[in-house]
């Protein structure tokens, strides 16, 4: 008999989800592609004037990435719920928050990280000043995991539903508002030469808290919605 440790169970979840993403690696690019499409629409709607675009570029990048993340959230539990492996995960003898935390981590790695990687391209398309780019990337590095963690709690609540898209957006929006405000605020402050560390620190504090609490909330929500 070998029961395995919590760490080995989490490793198994991470390994499997990474493998699944690799098998469907074409789909993994979708969020990044979606963010690019959204960003392309703005100059077409607002006109190509560089100064005007530069002024609102940070905000557009964040909104595009938020929307792309929202689009990708649906895949977090849907497949697992449909084929019954979510049940198996819940029945595991290891703590569910840890396993879900691993799932969320992989989800961020496969959707959030690509979004951070395309962010410089998006910024360049919108003429974001080069000097603001570090602030943008730092804010994204803190904000995208938060979006994944908050989103996971809401997805867990809607997991059994067939058409949950609109409802999910409604549930997620109030949770995303503070993240968006601080992340975009940091960039705007950096762009206008103001100190931008404070909002980033707030985001960091929120991330530290959410890393602990969100997987637990996600587990509690999941137990409610699979019953």
């Amino acid at each position, binding site marked *: 008999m070998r029961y*395995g440790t919590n760490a080995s169970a989490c490793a*198994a979840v991470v390994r*499997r989800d990474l493998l699944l993403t690799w098998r469907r690696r074409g789909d993994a690019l979708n969020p990044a592609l979606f963010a690019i499409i959204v960003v392309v629409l703005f100059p077409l709607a607002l006109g190509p004037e560089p100064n005007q675009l530069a002024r609102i570029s940070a905000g557009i990048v964040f909104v595009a990435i938020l929307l792309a993340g929202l689009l990708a959230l649906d895949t977090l539990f849907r497949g697992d719920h449909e*084929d*019954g492996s979510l049940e198996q995960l819940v*029945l595991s003898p290891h703590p569910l928050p840890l396993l879900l935390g691993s799932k969320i981590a992989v989800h961020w790695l496969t959707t959030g990280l690509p979004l951070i990687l395309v962010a410089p391209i998006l910024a360049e398309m919108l003429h974001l000043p080069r000097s603001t780019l570090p602030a943008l990337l730092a804010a994204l590095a803190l904000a995208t995991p938060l979006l994944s963690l908050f989103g996971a709690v809401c997805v867990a609540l809607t997991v059994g539903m067939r058409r949950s898209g609109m409802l999910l957006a409604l549930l997620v929006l109030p949770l995303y508002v503070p993240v968006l405000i601080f992340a975009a605020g940091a960039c705007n402050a950096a762009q206008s030469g103001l100190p931008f560390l404070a909002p980033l620190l707030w985001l960091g504090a929120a991330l530290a808290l959410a890393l602990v609490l969100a997987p637990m909330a996600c587990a509690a929500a999941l137990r409610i919605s699979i019953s």
Partner: protein
Amino acid sequence: MSHDPQRLPMSITLARLSRPDWGVSARAGGFCKLMTGGESNDPMPLLEASGLSYSRNDEPVFGPLDFRLHAGEVLLIEGDNGSGKTTLLRVLSGLLAPGGGSIRLNGEDLTMARLSHQVALLGHQPGLKADLTPLENLDFAIGVFGLRGGITPHLALASVGLEGYEEVPVRQLSAGQKKRVSLARLLLVPAALWLLDEPYANLDREGIDLVNRLLDAQARRGGAALVTSHGAYVFTTGSPRRLPLRATA
């Protein structure tokens, strides 16, 4: 739902597999009455449900049920569609909180028992990832549930008749073959109690025999199993016997 749950019978059949000398006790109140094989005075049962019931939207789904399951026993739960068999297994596995009554595993409260690796559930869905191979799926199950001694994923696949399919993506397997992969998972994980929801569905004659052999082996190992069936499939091999427990509607 067009049916009134009170009119749906659910019977519980105890199939004593390897220990025919053991007394069997099953008593059910409420919506199903069972003829029992006599009260027992044996040691601590593996699974003990007392007054177990579950309601959805305040409509009773099953229960209150009382039954005990000892090591070496297989309990066949028969009932029509909608009689609450699946719900019963989900309650017993801990996925659903019981509406009333209590479940004890080895004398422990259910949630604690689950933490000590006691229960394996085979649900309606096979719980397999279509993009992964059977071996990869089994590796994941081992990682999350642990591994029984003396068996490997290859051995388990061979014993469910899937030798040579180790590296074929699950999406290319037939429904019956997927079921067999789930059965291989049961063999691998170190659970004393199996909860099998319609294990005979999608299986051919040979597959049904396979399930019965696996159940037999599980009972011989000192494990136990709860099996649901809507009655179309029965134990066909010679060794398991059924106790004539009939539901009265």
